């Protein structure tokens, strides 16, 4: 019977062509959307993790409550001991200390008078050692536009955009005005040795990158850090949530606002919402395409049933039972779905790969919000992208045929049969 069905499909193009095209298109769109959303989520997670949230982040309880303001007076103290403890407790996690600091950047002219002055958004990181984890996270040296890497504590990098707007040249010394951890005003001179662009709009507007050693002295933050970022070998939403809960139970003390508190990536910057949203969107798209394609294929199946009225009638007369015919039609549809899915998967992966390799630059369209996102949107072709098309491809064709075939089950054998004989 399988051979019999296959022969019919191969020989009767009107039986197979339209449904195969429909299925392929549905599968192409599904795969493209799927890889796009995967790429979007992954970028969202990675960019945010690397630039600002970590997979997990340890701060003080008080700092956590006001995290948007980056209150350095509430920073973690005794970081060396904490790090030793953390390395013992969580050996698979890598840690990065960061201090966020803001203030005014003052660019003097050759007489020492203020030439330009504006706000900066500073980030102090472990910048100098060659084995610093920051070379994988922030990648300051790979992001250099002009100049060179920082090699001493009184050197800084600033965003290329900021450098241009302030007409800062490489080698210029600028004065930073900020607050110490104790809340006193502090001035410090730093030499701009390079400009950077990270490809993340939020960072590229006002960023200033300095070595954490120099900044600790500048801000009187010896053995203190505003944030301690932790990175798993690979992000896993379940793991980071569990880890944060576990940590807070062990180390956090509600009565001591300076006790450490762990935030998972999802606890920060509304990322849980985005993360869930993109996951829902994936499912929603697949479900949506199953529905749309089923309806289209259902109608195609009905047309097919009308066109093949005679064939169906004569097969019944010869002795094929209604149920057998019904399943033969579903089987036929499943074969078509399989072919359409294979074609659609191949055709869908091509633009997905392109979108992964080339991407689309959306920097000009990005609103000036705090959300960390790469300027270039890319898809991500995962192994699952090779299989995800089978869900709408096979399901929709079978469902469409199952709905269309109800007519066969209802069909009154004699009535149909008479219509054959016109």
């Amino acid at each position, binding site marked *: 019977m399988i051979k019999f069905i296959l*022969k*019919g499909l191969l020989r009767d193009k009107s039986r197979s062509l339209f449904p195969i095209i429909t299925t392929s298109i549905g599968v192409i769109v599904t795969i493209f959307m799927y890889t796009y959303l995967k790429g979007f989520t992954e970028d969202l997670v990675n960019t945010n993790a690397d630039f600002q949230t970590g997979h997990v982040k340890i701060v003080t309880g008080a700092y956590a409550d006001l995290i948007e303001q980056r209150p350095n007076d509430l920073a973690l103290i005794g970081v060396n001991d904490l790090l030793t403890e953390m390395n013992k407790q969580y050996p698979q996690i890598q840690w990065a200390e960061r201090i966020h600091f803001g203030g005014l950047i003052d660019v003097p002219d050759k007489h020492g008078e203020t030439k330009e002055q504006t706000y900066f958004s500073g980030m102090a990181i472990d910048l100098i050692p060659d084995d610093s984890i920051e070379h994988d996270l922030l990648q300051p040296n790979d992001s250099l536009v002009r100049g060179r890497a920082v090699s001493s504590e009184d050197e800084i990098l600033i965003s290329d955009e900021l450098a241009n707007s302030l007409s800062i040249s490489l080698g210029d010394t600028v004065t930073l005005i900020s607050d110490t951890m104790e809340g006193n005003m502090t001035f410090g001179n730093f030499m701009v040795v390079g400009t950077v662009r990270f490809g993340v709009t939020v960072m590229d507007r006002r960023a200033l990158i300095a070595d954490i050693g120099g900044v600790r002295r500048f801000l009187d933050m010896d053995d203190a850090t505003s944030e301690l970022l932790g990175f798993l070998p690979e992000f896993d939403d379940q793991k980071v949530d569990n880890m944060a809960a576990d940590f807070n139970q062990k180390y956090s003390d509600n009565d001591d606002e300076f006790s450490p508190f762990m935030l998972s990536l999802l606890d920060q910057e509304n990322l849980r919402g985005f993360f869930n949203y993109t996951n829902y969107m994936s499912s929603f798209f697949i479900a949506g395409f199953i529905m749309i394609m089923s309806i289209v294929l259902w109608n195609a199946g009905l047309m097919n049933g009308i066109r093949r009225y005679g064939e169906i009638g004569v*097969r019944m007369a010869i002795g094929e039972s209604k149920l057998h015919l019904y399943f033969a039609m579903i089987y036929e549809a499943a074969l078509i779905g399989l072919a359409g899915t294979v074609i659609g998967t191949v055709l869908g992966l091509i633009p997905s790969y392109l979108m992964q390799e080339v991407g689309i630059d959306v920097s000009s369209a990005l609103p000036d919000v705090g959300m960390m996102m790469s300027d270039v949107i890319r898809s991500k072709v995962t192994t699952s992208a090779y299989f995800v098309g089978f869900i709408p491809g096979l399901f929709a064709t079978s469902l469409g045929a199952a709905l269309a075939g109800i007519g066969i089950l209802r069909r009154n054998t004699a009535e149909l049969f008479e219509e054959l004989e016109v």
Partner: protein
Amino acid sequence: MQNVIEIRNMTKHYPVGTGKFTALEDINLQFGKGEFAGLVGPSGSGKTTLLNIVGTLDNQSEGEVAVLGNDIRILSSRQAADMRSEHIGFIFQTYNLLPHYTVFENVEFPLILLKYPAKKRSDLVMEVLEMVGLTDKVKSKPAKLSGGQCQRVAIARAMVKKPAILLADEPTANLDVDNSHNILQLMVKMNKEMNTSFIFSTHDEKVIRYLRRKINLLDGKVASDTEQLNNDA
């Protein structure tokens, strides 16, 4: 001898608007093994309706119909399909071959439904194609055949499973004189060799001449039921 078909006090109504139309009324007929009988009558006299009921494609409204000892009213649609598959062959005025399948595949189809193994199918198909004289058209599609050839394929398809009953609804209506005679002679021959009961519906004089039993239907009633000895076979 046991009858293959027994019809007692059978009536068939069709619902028409709010009332009903009586297509067959109080039919009493028996058909034995190996009969070569015809339902003869003008258009609308109920010939097709009767064949459909006997062929388990339709149900009577009243009375009893037994086919091969089975009361067709209590057969499920599945059981009726199985009975058609094993014991009943159909031939139609318009042939109704499957257009995308070859002559061989068309004739093979009933045997696929019966789940015969490939070798047995092939042997039976070639045997029956030999009888209808189409061994040279095995690989042809129906569109490439003449009307007479198509009807011979249809006969082969109906007879390949060696059914107990063959129902032929106006099998010659679309054929010319020569082809009609060929088809009839073929069926007479098969009727003798396989002991299948043939029941025709026809108003074609050429067919009527071959019948051994002629049942006249008029307005849904049996007007006469006579044996004929003067057939050409």
